[in-house]
């Protein structure tokens, strides 16, 4: 099964990953864009109809060309000036980027949009959707030819440890050598789970929350056992707060 991230290794040896947008999200973005094009067309048609009594042939000609240019140029224009985004992609948090992480070029934007004609076949992006589903980088044919991918832009929120770690006395810090061992043994993924459990504590119902923190506390106690007096009278949830405090802060908070 293919993953939904694309790791890119820089010459500096750093690996960063792009979260690939799936075919369904992209389809919805296309639907929004189609509605935007239709709305624009209605506005142009409405404005031009006023001139119909003067020259109906000319009005029809302008409408034909406007529809063609708008249909083809809408994505090219917006993806170029908005760095890989259209109205639909902006709303759904998607962006077209170079498949190797380089700067998106105008030629790539034009190529992927010209080749949309094949991806649209036979109806409703069947060829493009199939190609997207089968391709390891979730690329439609236009993306393959233009060497582009569509990614999801992550929503970034600031971590706020002060709010999470209520500032209560941390009994684990009394045993500095054990606290250091805990910091050493806990993996980033385990630390992340403990932190996320605290961040999302209000999303669980009472019983589930109790069960979750009991399981986590038992897991971390096994990882580095602390003496009885350090954990005596400390609830499982407070124990996890203490663990997160030790793991994420190397110095005790005054």
């Amino acid at each position, binding site marked *: 099964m293919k993953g939904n991230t694309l790791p890119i290794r820089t010459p500096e040896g750093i690996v960063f990953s792009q979260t690939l947008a799936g075919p369904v999200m992209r389809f919805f973005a296309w639907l929004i864009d189609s509605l935007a094009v239709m709305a624009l067309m209605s506005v142009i048609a409405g404005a031009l109809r006023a001139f119909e009594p003067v020259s109906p042939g000319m009005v029809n000609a*302008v409408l034909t060309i406007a529809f063609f240019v708008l249909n083809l140029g809408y994505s090219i224009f917006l993806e170029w000036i908005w760095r890989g985004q259209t109205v639909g992609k902006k709303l759904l948090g998607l962006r077209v980027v170079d498949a190797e992480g380089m700067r998106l070029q105008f030629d790539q934007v034009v190529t992927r949009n010209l080749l949309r004609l094949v991806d649209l076949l036979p109806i409703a992006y069947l060829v493009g959707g199939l190609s997207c589903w089968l391709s390891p980088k979730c690329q439609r044919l236009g993306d*393959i030819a233009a060497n582009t991918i569509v990614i999801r832009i992550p929503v970034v929120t600031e971590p706020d440890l002060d709010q999470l770690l209520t500032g209560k006395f941390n009994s684990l810090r009394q045993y500095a050598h054990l606290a250091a061992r805990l910091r050493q043994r806990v993996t*980033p993924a385990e630390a992340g789970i403990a932190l996320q459990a605290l961040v999302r504590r209000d999303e669980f119902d009472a019983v589930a929350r109790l069960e979750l923190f009991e399981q986590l506390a038992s897991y971390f106690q096994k990882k580095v056992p602390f003496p009885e007096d350090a954990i005596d009278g400390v609830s499982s949830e407070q124990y996890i707060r203490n663990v997160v405090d030790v793991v994420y802060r190397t110095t005790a908070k005054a």
Partner: protein
Amino acid sequence: MIIDLQRFIHTERPVWNELESVLNRLEADPNLKLSLEEAQRFHELYERATASLAKLTTFSSEPATRQYLENLVARAYGEVHETREKRRKLQPLLWLRQTLPRTFRRQIQAFYLALAITLAGCAFGTVATLVDPDSRHVTMPFGHDRLKPSQRVAEEEKRTKDRLTGNRTFFSSQLMTHNTQVSIFTLALGTTWGIGTILILFSNGISLGAIATDYVTDGQARFLLGWLLPHGVIEIPAILVAGQAGFVLARGLIGWGDRTTLSGRLRAISGDLVTLSIGFALMLVWAGFVESFLSQYHEPVVPYEAKIAFGVLELIALILYLGRSGRT
């Protein structure tokens, strides 16, 4: 070892913010050029951000911060490591004088292939019409199969009223958009390793060969040349250029005899694809005007010799332009 996330973020945040503001400037203006000092600072900021990301990747950390940094490094990476030249400001005259004809000549092999396939189609259409006249119902488009050429010529030359009055511009716009769409499709079918492009060019050739044979055998060669040459000498090469672009794309995808990676090959041809696409679109706009405003008028309104001469002049101009323009 686990880092102190808060202190780490507090120390590094100003660097990330500065990098983000430079990136915002670069992304807002594709023509922006950094001074040497700015470029050096930008590179330093990028290296600091990548170092921060390396630390966060190795040690425990808040995933949101890591995501934020990954996003920042991803944006900066594209700007720092991009080696392709930034697109200069649009220079239409320079593009017409040099870029298009040079690109056409650089990819001439693909054009010859498109021409050969179309000619093969023409030959097939000719033979089919000669051997089996009934095949016209399959080989000819647009209702050409319903009338004998001599009947059509008689009707056209008898016509006293202009059937396009008031609709010439509309007809012209329909021709332009339809032909451009077909040509883009011909190019886009290059993604089928060129098979779709071959089929479209061959079928176009069949129609062309069948119609031409039909008119010539019916003694209407003069009418045929007068009708087809003014717009056809631009329209047919435009479709061949679309086929040429389709084959360039197919060659990039297949990579026959080329050791560079798929993405490297596609990166190398993307500029040529766009240039050829704009080229055939412009040719079809011209052909649409000519077809609507000249080709549809026959004797006695416009003498055939004048139309043929116009077509020949256009063809010579096109050959000279594509063959000679932009040579140093």
